[in-house]
């Protein structure tokens, strides 16, 4: 991480830490803490999307499916088999990693957007399984009364506790991703995005890295899914369909694809937009999403973070 990143890191951490104390006293917005827990969970998914799409240039349409794999693995193992959530979570992450690996290897050996196509189909399959395997997943009506989470013996019983736990996790994941980016692996991922043949000729095993970063994004999504399960304690398949995969991509695009800060900013903003401010539009919500996407693509192709950074001077790119 550069010194500037560290400064933003500390500032953001302070802001996040102080946020509940600012909104809780005000009745009208006191539930924003709750919204922010969701934003934090989604942010984990979106960090993975940024690594995969923003840096390595690979598009996945199945992040909601990996989110669902994590969520349902946790739900089934803890709800039906009374397994400890802390054992169910790595199980979900491992399953997601394995699935990403199997889907990724054939799709990522090829250049081009084969991953987008493969994951599009895969995401639909996962959604169908969640709907149809009634015996395991509860089908369309889902599962309820799932256990909460204990952290080091403390039960996360309030939204405030969840808030700090989730955002603590987000910052750990953020650090991990930053360190990966500022390493030979991160440079290789960016190189793959820009000139795949040249990267390969310079000794970068492009196929392997693409699969690895895809697995990383799947694991982050699965861990987020597990947290989601224990936070809301009930699930149904509609949170894990294609629309949600698109939403995660939209969050990252709004914030700025080639910045981890963009992922956080976009996620928080779009979570508030989706959970809080769009209800007035009811069924027309999807249109508003389309409009947001269009505006961002046309006027802010590098996302909202580009408003905060000075442009590097590139004469003849």
């Amino acid at each position: 991480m550069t010194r500037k990143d560290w400064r933003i890191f500390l500032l953001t951490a302070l802001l996040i830490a102080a946020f509940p104390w600012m909104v809780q006293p005000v009745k009208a917005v006191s539930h924003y803490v709750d919204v922010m827990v969701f934003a934090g969970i989604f942010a984990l998914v979106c960090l993975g999307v940024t690594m995969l799409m923003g840096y390595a240039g690979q598009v996945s349409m199945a992040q909601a499916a990996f989110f669902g794999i994590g969520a349902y693995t946790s739900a089934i193992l803890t709800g039906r088999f009374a397994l400890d959530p802390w054992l169910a979570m790595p199980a979900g992450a491992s399953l997601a990693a394995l699935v990403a690996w199997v889907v990724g290897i054939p799709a990522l050996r090829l250049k081009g957007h084969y991953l987008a196509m493969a994951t599009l189909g895969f995401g639909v399959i996962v959604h169908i399984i969640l709907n149809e395997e009634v015996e395991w997943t509860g089908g369309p009506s889902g599962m309820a009364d799932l256990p909460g989470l204990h952290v080091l013996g403390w039960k996360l019983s309030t939204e405030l506790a969840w808030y700090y736990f989730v955002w603590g996790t987000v910052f750990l994941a953020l650090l991990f991703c930053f360190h990966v980016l500022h390493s030979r692996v991160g440079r290789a991922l960016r190189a793959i995005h820009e000139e795949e043949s040249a990267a390969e000729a310079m000794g970068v095993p492009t196929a392997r890295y693409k699969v690895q970063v895809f697995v990383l994004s799947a694991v982050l999504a699965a861990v987020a899914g597990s947290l989601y399960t224990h936070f809301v304690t009930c699930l149904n398949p509609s949170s894990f369909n294609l629309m949600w995969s698109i939403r995660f991509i939209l969050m990252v695009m709004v914030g700025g694809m080639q910045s981890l800060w963009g992922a956080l900013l976009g996620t928080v903003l779009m979570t508030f937009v989706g959970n809080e401010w769009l209800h007035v539009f009811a069924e027309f919500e999807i249109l508003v999403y389309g409009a947001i996407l269009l505006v961002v693509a046309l006027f802010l192709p590098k996302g909202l973070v580009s408003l905060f950074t000075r442009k590097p001077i590139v004469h003849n790119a």
Partner: protein
Amino acid sequence: MDERSKRPHAALLQLRNVQMQFGGVTALKGISYDVPSGIVQAVIGPNGAGKTTLFHCISGLLTPTAGEILFRGLPIGGLPPHRIAGLGISRTFQHVALFKSMTVLENVMIGRHPRTFSGFWSAGLRFPRMRREERRILEEAGHYLEFVGLSGERDLPAGALPLGKQKILEIARALATQPTLLLLDEPAGGLNMRETEELGELILRICETGITVTLVEHDMNLVMEISHRILVIHYGEHLATGTPEEIKDHPAVIEAYLGGG
């Protein structure tokens, strides 16, 4: 003449009847040739002769449809490019293929990839070994930039450099992989006279460090000036081989270049 015409000893790269077909089009009709170690080897030929295709075959971007390529006696045909880079063959591209939005320094740092090891875990968790390696990569990349004379531009985005310097940067990036054999695909393309002269000096300096340089080039002055040996291909076939002096007066070469059916 001078020592440029020295006769080399061991063959570093051996081409054995290398063929490349694209559908019905045969780009290489069976090239057999040995590139000796330690020299500047030029590959010339009219447009469409198959020179770049040959480079793609050697560097692994294409797999020859028939024939064999041996590098230090090992068959490398069909290996993925990153493995071939690891074995010690690096290259530049006819149309500059830099990582344009990355800095000049970062481009060269990528070149260190096949000689370094840290993966996702050691990078993400910032193991001490990885941090030491990262410092070394930074330092070594700096040396390569110094060698080619681009230290002053290290923090600029590669895409912001003028074409001449982009071409030099590609060479620095390729050198950073520590190749035994360096393939330069039209390094002088788009360069002015002074830049071409400097490029020639740079290529000779690279050769002096013990790296075998093979270049495809259309600038005949440059080719005649710096090459120890020249391979001429025409319509995917081996047409002639020799020292610059031999090639200059070779009747078949003159025929191929000046036309005549």
